[in-house]
C-alpha cells in the first residue's frame, strides 16, 4: 500500500510541477492546486495506523479507528491551501486586469 501512495504522490508532484511551468497563469495556479492535494494526501497516508471505523469515541474500544491526529492536521492544511489558492486566483485576476494578459511570458518586467 505504501508503494501505491508513494507512486501516486510522486506522479501528482510531477503533474503539478509540469503545470506550474506553463505560460498560462490559470494553468500555473492549477499546478499549485495539484501540489496542495498531493501534500494533503501524503499527510493522510503517513498516519500512525489505518483503521476500520471513524475516529469517534464510541468506536474506540470496539475496533481500530483511523488516526485522528493526521486528520486534524489535514483539516488545517486543506483550509490553508484553499486560502493560498484564493490569493493566487486574486493575483491572476489582478494582473489580467492590469496588464491585459493572462500569459506569464508577456510579463517580463522582472528583467535584471
Amino acid at each position, binding site marked *: 500500500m505504501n508503494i501505491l501512495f508513494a507512486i501516486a504522490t510522486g506522479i501528482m*508532484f510531477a503533474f503539478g510541477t509540469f503545470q506550474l511551468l506553463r505560460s498560462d497563469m490559470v494553468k500555473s495556479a492549477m499546478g499549485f492546486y495539484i501540489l496542495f492535494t498531493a501534500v494533503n494526501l501524503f499527510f493522510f*497516508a503517513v498516519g500512525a495506523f489505518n483503521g476500520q471505523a471513524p475516529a469517534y*469515541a464510541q468506536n474506540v474500544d470496539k475496533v481500530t479507528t483511523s488516526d*485522528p491526529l493526521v486528520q486534524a492536521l489535514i483539516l488545517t492544511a486543506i483550509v490553508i491551501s484553499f*486560502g493560498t489558492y484564493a490569493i493566487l486566483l486574486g493575483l491572476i485576476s489582478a494582473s489580467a486586469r492590469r496588464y491585459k494578459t493572462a500569459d506569464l511570458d508577456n510579463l517580463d518586467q522582472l528583467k535584471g
Partner: protein
Amino acid sequence: MFGIGIISLAPAITALLRPAVRKFISKEIYGWMLATLVSILFVWLLTFIPTINEVGHVAVSMPWVPQLGLTLSIYLDGLSLLFSLMILGIGAMIVLYSIYYFDDAKSLDRFYTLLLPFMSAMLIVVLAGNVLTLFIGWELTSVISFLLVSFNGENEAARKGALQALIITGGGGLALMVGLVLLGTAAGSMEINQIITNTSLRDNPWYIGFTTLILIGCFTKSAQFPFHFWLPGAMSAPTPASAYLHSATMVKAGIYLLFRLSPVLGDTPLWENGLLIIGLITVLIGAAFALRQYDLKGALAYATISQLGVLVVLISLPHGEGLKAAAVGILAHGLYKAALFLTVGAVDHSAGTRDMKKLGGLARQMPGWAVVAVLAGLSMAGIPPLLGFVAKEGLIESLLTTPIALAVVVVSAAFTVAFGFIFIWDVFGGKASHSQHLHATPQGLLIGPAALAGMSLLTGIGLPVLITPLIHMITHEEVHLALFSGFNTPFLFSLIAVAGGVGIFVTRTTWRQWALPSLPTGTQIYQGVVQRVESVGDLLLKTQGGKLRYYLAVILSSVIVLQATAGLAHLTGYSLTFEFHPSIDILRSILLLLCLGMMLASILFKSHLLAGLSLGVAGYSVGGIFLIEPAPDVALVQFMVETIGTVLLIVMLARIRSVERQQAMDSLWIQSKAGLIRDILIATGIGVGVGLFVLAALTNRPQPKSIATWHLEHAEELVGVPDVVGAIVTDFRGMDTIIEITVFSVAALGVLTILSKPPASARWPVGIANAITGFQKTFRKPSDEDEYAVPAPYVDYLPEKHPHGEDSFLTSFSTPLTRVVTRIILPLAFLVALAHLFYGGEGPGDGFTAGVVSGLGVALWYIVFGYNDAHKQFARLGARRLIGIGVALVIANAAFPMLLGHPFLAHLNFDIPLPANIHLSSTFVYETGIFLTVLGSITTVMEAIAYPKEVEPL
C-alpha cells in the same frame, strides 16, 4: 544613574521633536536651544566625576534580550568620560556654528535631524556597557555619517564619497561584529566591564582571530592605512559635519575601541607590531599628502589621518606606556581640528573658495578668524603654551625607547608644524589675493570656533587643574603634566621638529613643484574593485531574462540537483514490500487512478473551464479516498473546499476578458520542443524525488503508540465531544486552529487588497519619515481619483441582460430555473450550516463546514444573479465585519477561561439545559466564531473576485 542613558539618547529624541517645536520658533532660537541643551548634558555629565573618582566607574545594567547576551548597560569611566565630554562639548559648538553656516532654515533643519541622532549614536558607542550595544551605536554612526556626507546629494562627488565611506566603514563593521562576538564568547560575557578585566584573553586560542577582526573594524573607522582614503573622500560633507566627524566623533570611535581594549588585548606581538606598523605608515602617508593638498579641507583631512596614525602608534606601546600621551593627544586634536575645520568653513563661505593658491591676506578682513586660526594652528604645530604642545611632548616622551617610531613621528611632527604654518600664513598672512571678493560672515559664526580655540589655550595654561585630573581618571596612575619640564630629551626633539617644520615651510614653493611617483591611490583601487563587481553583476543580470518560468525552471532544477546529491543519499530503510488488502485497496486504487487521470486531463485540456472541472473531480476522488479510510470529517471538508475552490476558479475566469483568456489557452502547446522536454524532465525529476521521499517516510511512519492513541482515549472525557478529530481541532490543538482561521481571514482580506487600488498616500510610516526629513514635497498628495476602487457600491453599472458584464460566459448561468433554485438554496444552506454548528461535535462537520456551506450559497447567488444584485443582497451581511467579529469571538472564547483561573483555551462546559439536545460549551462558541470568520472570508473573496469593473492598467 540612568541619567547617563538619558544623556546619550536626549539628542536623538530632541531631533524627533523638531517638527513640533520648530513651528513656533525661528531657526536661531531653535539652534540656541539645542546648543543649550547639549551644554546642559555636558554639565550633567560632569556631575558624575566624583563617583568616577571614588569608584573608578559607573556601571548600570538592564537585561534586554538575555538569550543573545544583549543588555542595556552603561559603562562610564575616565575614558568614556573624555570621549563623551568631547562629543558633547564640541557638539554644542558645532550646533551653534551651524545656525549661521546654513543660510536657509530648511537645510538647517535637515542637518540637525541628522546631526543630533549622530551625536546620540556616538555617545552610545563610548558609553555602551555591552559590546553588542556598542556595535549598534557603531553601525548607526556609519549609516548617519553616510547621510551627512551625502547631505548635498545632488552633487555627484558627495554621493560617491558617501558611498565609499559607507562601504569601507560598513565592511569594517562586519569584521568588527564577528570580532566582538568572538571576543565576548571568549571572555564569557558581552559586558565591557567583564571583558576589560579578563586578563586571560591573550592566551585564548581565538586571540589572533578576534583581535585581527576588531583591528580591521577599528582601522576602517579610524581611517588607517590601507583604508585611509575614505576620509578625504568624505569631505564633501557640509563643513560643520566634517569638523565633527574629524574631531570628536566617527574616526575617534576606532581610537576609542582600541584604547578601551588595549589593556586586555595589548602587550602581544600582534597588537604591538600590527598597530605600530599600520600607525607609522598612516602617519607618513597622511603627513605627506596633507602638504601636497591645495584644498584646505582636503589638507585638513590628510592631517587628521596622520594624527590618527600617531594615536594608533601610541596605543600600540607595551604596558600602556603611550596611553597617557594618547589621551592628551585625543583631546588636543579634537579641539584644534574642529576649530580649523570651522575656520575653513568660514573662509569658504566668505571668499567662495578653499583653494590655498587663491587665498591670502585674510587677516585684515577677518581678524577674529585669524586669531582662531593662529591659536588652533599653533596648537596643531605643537607650540607652547597650547595643549598641542603638551600632547607632542608626551608623544615624544613615550616613544623615546622606540627609535624608529620616534624618527617617523618627529619627521611627521615637522610636517605638521609646516602644515600649521602654511595654514596660518597662506590663508591669513601675506598679501591679499587680487581676485578676492569677500562676503561678510555672520558674527555668530565665530562663537563656536573661538570657544574651541580658546579651550586649546586654556587647557594648555590651566593644565594641572583641567587636564591632569582627567588623565588621571583614565590611566589611574600618577600624572605629571607640565608645559615646560626643563631642557630634556623630549624638548630637544620638539625643537628639532619645529626647526624642521620651519625649514619645510620656508622652502614650500620649491618642493611643491617636485613630482611624486604616481602610485595608484586608495580611491583608484577602490573604484577598480567597484567596477569589477559591477561588471560581474552585469554579467549575472544577463541571465535574468525577466520571464518568470525560466526563473522557476532554474530553481526547480537546483532542487533536483540538491535532491539527487544531498537529499536522497540520506533516505534509508524504505522497503518495497507490497501489501495489498483487496477489500479496501482495490477501491483506493480506482480512486487514485481516477484522481491521477483527472489531473492529467487538467493538463491536457486547452479550455480553462474543462481543466478546472477535471481538477474538481480529482479533488472529489481524493475526498473519496479520505472517506473509505474512514475519515468522514476530512472527506466532508475536502468536498466542501473542492467545491468552493472550483466555483472561485470559474468566477475568476469570468473576470478575465475572453480575448486574453483565449490567448493564454492557445499558448498551451506553442512552446518549443526543447522547452517541452525540459519541463517534462524537471517534472519527472521532482516527481521521482518526492516519490522516493514519500516512500521512505511511509515505511518509517510513527508507530501506533503515538499521541493519537491518547487523543482517542481521552477526547470524550476531556472535551465532551465524541468526534475525536473535532476534539483535536477545537481543543487539543486549538491554538493551531486560531492561527489557521486568522491566516484564512488574512488571505481573504489579501485577495480584497490585491484587487483594490492602493490609496496613494500611505500615512505611516512614510508620512512620519517625511515630517522628520523635510521631504514632504517629493510625495504627491492624494487626489479624488485615488479612492478605493473596490468594492464600491455599484448599482447601475451593468445592463439587466448582462449581470456579469458584456462578454462573460457566466451570463448563460442565469436562467429562470437557476434563479428559483438559488433562492431556495440560500436559506437551506444557512439551515444546514446551523445544524453543523449545533451538532457538529457528534459527527462529521464543524464550524468550518458550516461556514463553507453557507458561503457556497452566497457564491451561487453571485454566479446566478451577478455582482450587482449579490452585492445589494449581501451588503447587509457586512462581510469584513463578520471576519472581525468571528476572530474576536474565537480569541475572546480562548481567553475567557483565564478570567476563571483556567489556562488559555481551557475547555468550559456550561450546564444549561437546552431543548433539541443542544449542548452548550466553549467549543460551541469557538465553532460559531469560526463559522462567522469563514462566512465573512468567503463572501469577501467572492465580492472582490466577482467585481466586474475593469481596473485601469498600471
